[in-house]
C-alpha cells in the first residue's frame, strides 16, 4: 500500500516540480544570501536549522602554486598533493611540543613543500621556490626585478624589511629582494 501511495506521490510530484520550478535547481540561494544572523533565526523558525548540503571548501580562496602541472593550494589537505607530486623528494619531520602536531618538510628539485597538522590531518603550510626553473601563476621567477613583481602583483602589498607580501584569502605570497632582484619566493598558509 505504501508503494502505491509513493508511486502516486512521485508521479504527481514530478509533474508539479516541472510546473512549479521550471526546471530550476538553485533553490536555497535566497535564504543564504539574505545575511548571516537573520538567516539563521529564520531557518530555525520552521523548527530546525535546515541541513543545507553545501559544505564550505577549506581552500576556496587562497594562492595556488602549480608544480609540474600539479596544483598545490595553501591550506589544502596535503596527502593527496604529496602523492601526486611523486617520490622525488627528501623528507624531514619534526613533532611539535607535546605532540600537538607534526611539521613535515618535503624538498623537491625546485621547490620545498611544508605541511602542518590539524585535527590529525596534514595541510599544506608553505611552498618555497628554490630556483628559476619554476614560476608563479603570474609568471614571476627568482631573479625577477622588484618592478616586475610590483607590475604583476600590484602596489598594495605589505612592505617588509626584506621584501613584499601579498595576501589572498587565507594565504600570502612573499617576494624577498636583494639588490632589486627577487632572491626567494614563498607561499604561506595563514592558519586560523
Amino acid at each position, binding site marked *: 500500500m*505504501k508503494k502505491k501511495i509513493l508511486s502516486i506521490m512521485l508521479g504527481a*510530484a514530478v509533474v508539479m*516540480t516541472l510546473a512549479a520550478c*521550471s526546471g*530550476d535547481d538553485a533553490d536555497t540561494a535566497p535564504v543564504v544570501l*539574505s545575511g548571516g544572523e537573520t538567516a539563521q533565526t529564520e531557518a530555525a523558525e520552521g*523548527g530546525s536549522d*535546515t*541541513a543545507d*548540503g553545501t559544505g564550505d571548501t577549506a581552500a576556496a580562496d587562497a594562492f595556488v602554486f602549480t608544480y609540474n602541472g600539479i596544483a598545490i593550494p595553501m591550506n589544502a589537505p596535503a596527502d593527496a598533493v604529496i602523492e601526486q607530486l611523486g617520490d622525488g623528494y627528501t623528507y624531514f619531520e619534526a613533532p611539535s611540543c607535546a605532540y600537538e602536531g607534526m611539521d613535515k618538510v618535503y624538498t623537491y628539485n625546485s621547490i620545498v613543500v611544508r605541511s602542518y597538522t590539524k585535527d590529525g590531518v596534514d595541510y599544506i603550510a608553505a611552498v618555497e621556490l628554490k630556483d628559476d626553473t619554476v614560476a608563479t601563476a603570474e609568471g614571476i621567477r627568482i631573479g625577477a626585478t622588484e618592478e616586475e613583481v610590483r607590475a604583476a602583483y600590484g602596489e598594495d602589498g605589505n612592505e617588509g624589511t626584506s621584501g613584499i607580501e601579498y595576501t589572498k584569502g587565507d594565504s600570502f605570497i612573499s617576494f624577498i629582494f636583494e639588490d632589486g632582484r627577487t632572491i626567494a619566493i614563498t607561499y604561506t598558509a595563514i592558519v586560523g
Partner: protein
Amino acid sequence: MLFTSLKFIVFITILVIVYYAFTPAKERWGLLLMASLAFYFFADPRFLIFIFVTALVAYVHAIVTEDYQAKRKAYLKQNKELFDGDGKKKYKKTTANVTRLLLVLSLLINLGILAATKYTNFVIDTVNSIRGGEPLSFVNVIIPMGISFYTFQTVSYSIDISRGTVKAERNLLKLLLFVSFFPQLVQGPISRFGDLSQTLYTPKQFEFKNVSYGFIRILWGYFKKLVIADRLLPAIKILTGSPDEYNGAFVFIVMMFYAAQLYCDFTGGIDITIGIAQVLGVTVKENFDLPYFSKNIKEYWNRWHITMGTWFTDYIFYPLSVSPKMLKLSKWSREHLGNAVGKRVTVYISCFAVWLATGIWHGAAWHFVVWGLMNFVVIMASQELEPLYAKFHAKFNLKPHKGYAVFEIIRTFLLMSSLKLFDCYANVGLTFKMFGSMFTTFNAGKLFGGALADIGLSSGDYILLAGSITVVFLVSLYKKFKGTDIRGFLYDRFPLFALSAVILLIATLVFGAYGAGYDASQFIYNQF
C-alpha cells in the same frame, strides 16, 4: 539569542529572579514586556521598529473596528423603528463591508511587511532563473527575528477582532506584549489572543508546582535539543553534503536521523518555550501531541505543529471553502461533475491553497513549496484511498488488530520522514534522485565496514543516541498510554521528581553537543 546560547540562559535566570523576587504580582506582565523588548533589542535594535509597527497597526485596527461595530449596533438598536427587514439587512451588510475593508487594510500592512522582508529575494531569485540574461541583484533586507510567528499571531488577532470573537485590547503595551512575548519568538507556538490573554496579563503568584513543572520541562527540552538533535545535525550535514558518496541505504539513514533530529530540535524548542512560560505563570497552547504515533498523514498534521495547522485551517481553509463563491462552485461542480467528484472540488482547492501557503511559510525557497505540495498530494491520495482501505479491512477483518495499528504508525512515520528529505538536500531534483537511489541501489552492506564511523559519530555517540532516543520514546509511550505526561507521576513522588531533574540537568551538561568540542573547527583533543 538562540535558546542554547549561554546568554539566553543567563537572561532567563535573571528574569525569573527579578520576576518573583522584586516585582509585584500585578506588575509582572510589565516586566515580561520589558524582557521581550530587551530580547529583541539584543538581537538587533532595528527589529523593535518592525514589531512595534505591527503591534500598532493591530492595536489601531482593533479599536477602530470594535468602536465602529459598537456604534453601528447601538444605532440599530436605538433606531429600530427606522428599519424594515431589508433595510436592517442592508445596514448590517454595510457594517460588514466596512469591517472587512478595515481588516484588509490592516492585513495588507502587516502581511506586506512579512512579504517584503522575507520573500523579496526569493521572488528576485525566481524571476532571475526564469528570465535568464542579466540577473537582478538581491536586495539587502533585514529579516526581523521570528517575524513569521509574530505576524501570524497578530493577523489572527485582527481577524478575530473583525469576526467579533475577541475583545479589543485597549492598552497598547499589553497588546505589544501579546505580539512580542519572547519565548515564542524563535519557534512558536502561534498563540491566539483569546488563549494567551487569559494568563498573560493576570497577576501571577509564585506557584511551586507551576515552577517545578516548567523547570523540568525546560530541562527536557534542552536534553532533546542538545543531546540528540545537535549531535545528529553534523552527521546529517556530512551525509547530505556528499550525496554521490552517501546514496542508497544512507538516504534511509538520513531519513531516520533527520526525523529524530527535527523532532527533538522542534519539540525540544517548544518544551523550552512552554516551560519558560509556565515558570513565568503563563499558559501557552501545546504545539505537539505525539505526532510520530499518528496513523495517517491527516492525523499527523493534527498532532505536529498544531498551532500552525489550526491557524491555516481557521484563517485560510475555512474562510476559503465556505465563502459564497466556493459554495457556488461546489454546487456547480456537483451538478456538472457528479456528486462524488463535485463534493471534492472546493475542499481540494482550499486544501491546495493551505499547503501552498504552508510551504512558503516554512521558508523562502522552492524546495519548501514543493515539500508543501507533496504533503497536499499525499493527504489527497490517502483521502482518496480511504474507501479502498475500508474495503480491504472489511474483507480481512483487520482493523481491531493491534499489529495493524503499529503498521499504520510505522507507515505514516516512513511517509512523513521521506517527505522531510526535501529539507535535507540542496535542491528538489537531488532529493528525488536520492529518494530513488534507496530503491535502485540500497546496498545495506555499505553501511558497515566503517562508513558509519566516518560521519562524525563515534561508537560512544551511537550508544548515547540509542539510549537517549529510547528515553524519549519511553516518555512518549507513557503519555500515549496514560494520557497524561509523566511529570504528574513524578511530582506526586517529589524526591523522584527532584532526582529526575538533577539527572536530566547533568546528563544534558555532560552529553550535550555544545561548546568547543563540537565546534565546526574542532580542536584537536582526541589523543588525551
